[in-house]
């Protein structure tokens, strides 16, 4: 029994002892769970901003925040005070209700994902999860799709052409990268046999990153693209479109949008840890939530690593990458996993009998798929390069002295 189950049992007996109806006790417990998860999301945001600033600084060979507190640990508090004391502007001619509602919706959509992420197994008092929805992973996809509306609301209500353009581009990117995300989730659900996040962790006799290696990669990449982080951060790049759809937001509203982005990024890390890395399981028993947090933070570190390494993609490059590479690859991956799993099951190997043989055979199939797709990419790249060089050679023949 971990600490949270003990506290929940204590509260439940306390409330039941007050003589309240059963459903009312359930309602109060659900509200407390929601409040705890929301607060957890906000506190994680504080930790994540500090981690991001220190790590990006180190990757860029500088120190990052060093003043407030030891190693700058109090910098999120300084950020919060700055955000609260800034002037809260509403542009002239803006649609006031929609303008004020949009950042609240983005932050809400990012935080309610934590309701279905399982932090621990069922040790007699229910799984350590906000609510054990039997449609857990589809709920996450639906919330992600609905958060696109908030981006459109922000862009439209700002009464600013650049905000509107930024919102259009953001929506194009967000709805494009939902397609490989959904296809990879279908592959995971197919192997796990259930959409319930708690059951998906239980179904992983072998961590799904082995039989579903390409799936994990595609899901992680489209997750990074969904949050609008580098290298897909054209939506809010200062040298491109000066903050895009949230250009008119100042102070606390900007802080809410910023919070939504970071919390969403961490949520993607936690979801990948749940779907592919065995969720809450770790070496020591009794503290399952610590292992999930560590795995989520490790994936967040990989996202920061992406930000410090890759140059930014242009909007046409990013959309071409999605529609011409990720979508066919995820379809091919779905077919391969379906056929491979069925063949292996006929041969007597499955996730319950001989799990590691099953896992490693599918892993080999994944590597073959990855090599074949990279072969296609390199051939297409070589053809494009040859075409460019032929065009340059033709231009040099026509005008040999020009362009020297």
């Amino acid at each position: 029994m971990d600490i949270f189950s003990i506290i929940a049992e204590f509260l439940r007996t306390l409330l039941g002892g007050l003589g309240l109806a059963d459903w009312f006790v359930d309602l109060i417990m659900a509200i407390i769970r929601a409040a705890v998860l929301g607060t957890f999301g906000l506190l994680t945001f504080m930790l994540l901003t500090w981690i991001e600033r220190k790590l990006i600084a180190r990757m860029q060979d500088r120190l990052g925040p060093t003043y407030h507190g030891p190693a700058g640990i109090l910098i999120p508090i300084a950020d919060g005070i700055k955000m609260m004391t800034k002037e809260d502007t509403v542009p002239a001619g803006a649609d006031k209700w929609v303008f004020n509602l949009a950042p609240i919706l983005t932050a809400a959509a990012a935080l309610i994902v934590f309701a279905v992420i399982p932090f621990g197994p069922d040790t007699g008092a229910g799984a350590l999860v906000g609510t054990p929805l039997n449609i857990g992973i589809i709920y996450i996809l639906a919330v992600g799709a609905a958060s696109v509306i908030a981006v459109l609301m922000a862009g439209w209500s700002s009464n600013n052409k650049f905000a509107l353009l930024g919102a259009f581009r953001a929506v194009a990117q967000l709805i494009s990268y939902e397609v490989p995300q959904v296809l990879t989730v279908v592959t995971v659900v197919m192997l796990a046999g259930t959409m319930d996040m708690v059951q998906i962790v239980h179904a992983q006799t072998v961590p799904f990153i082995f039989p579903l290696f390409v799936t994990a990669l595609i899901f992680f990449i489209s997750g990074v693209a969904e949050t609008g982080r580098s290298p897909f951060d054209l939506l809010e790049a200062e040298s491109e479109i000066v903050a895009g759809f949230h250009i008119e937001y100042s102070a606390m509203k900007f802080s809410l949008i910023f919070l939504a982005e970071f919390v969403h990024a961490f949520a993607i890390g936690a979801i990948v840890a749940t779907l592919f890395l065995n969720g809450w399981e770790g070496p020591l028993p009794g503290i399952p939530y610590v292992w999930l947090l560590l795995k989520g933070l490790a994936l967040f570190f990989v996202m920061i690593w992406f930000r410090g390494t890759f140059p930014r993609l242009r909007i046409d490059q990013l959309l071409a990458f999605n529609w011409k590479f990720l979508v066919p690859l995820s379809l091919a991956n779905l077919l391969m996993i379906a056929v491979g799993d069925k063949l292996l099951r006929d041969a007597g190997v499955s996730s319950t009998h001989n799990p590691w043989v099953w896992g490693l055979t599918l892993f080999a199939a994944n590597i073959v798929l990855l090599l074949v797709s990279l072969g296609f990419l390199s051939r297409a790249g070589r053809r494009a390069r040859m075409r460019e060089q032929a065009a340059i050679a033709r231009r040099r023949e026509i005008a040999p002295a020009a362009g020297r």
Partner: protein
Amino acid sequence: MTAQQFFFLLFSFVTLIAALRVVTAGNLFHAALWLIATLAGVAALFVLLEAGLLAAVQVLLYIGAISILIIFAVMLTRGVADPREKRLNSWSGLGAVAAIVMMIILAQVIGTFPWGGSALAEAPADSIATLGKALVDPAQFVLPFEVISVLLLVALIGSVYVARARGEGE
């Protein structure tokens, strides 16, 4: 009043008010947003009926895709937020007649339905698997399923054809 009745009344109230605001909002963009609120209310009613998958798919498709399409169409309309635009056009009379006829027909149908006859049917425990099997069972819904897939393919090819860049000499 049980908790289920209370939440049903609450969600129905929200859905109906939002639906009313869709047709009476002056600003077309606000009407689209009220439509999103209506669809979310319907998703909440699905949850009350223990059809969780339908609720999630309602949010994912209606709010996450169709509403975005509607908002794009609204944004491309001229004079969306202009308060001087007239709200009714010359077809309003005929529209009112059609609405009243529709209301009479619906009232007949709703009046002759045996309300309160049976209790809420229990959803099968494994509703998602049942739905999945029904969609591929030759005795149930596989034919409409395949026909809809072909329809979606036709729509996809059509949209790519209509939206493709014109090459040279066309």
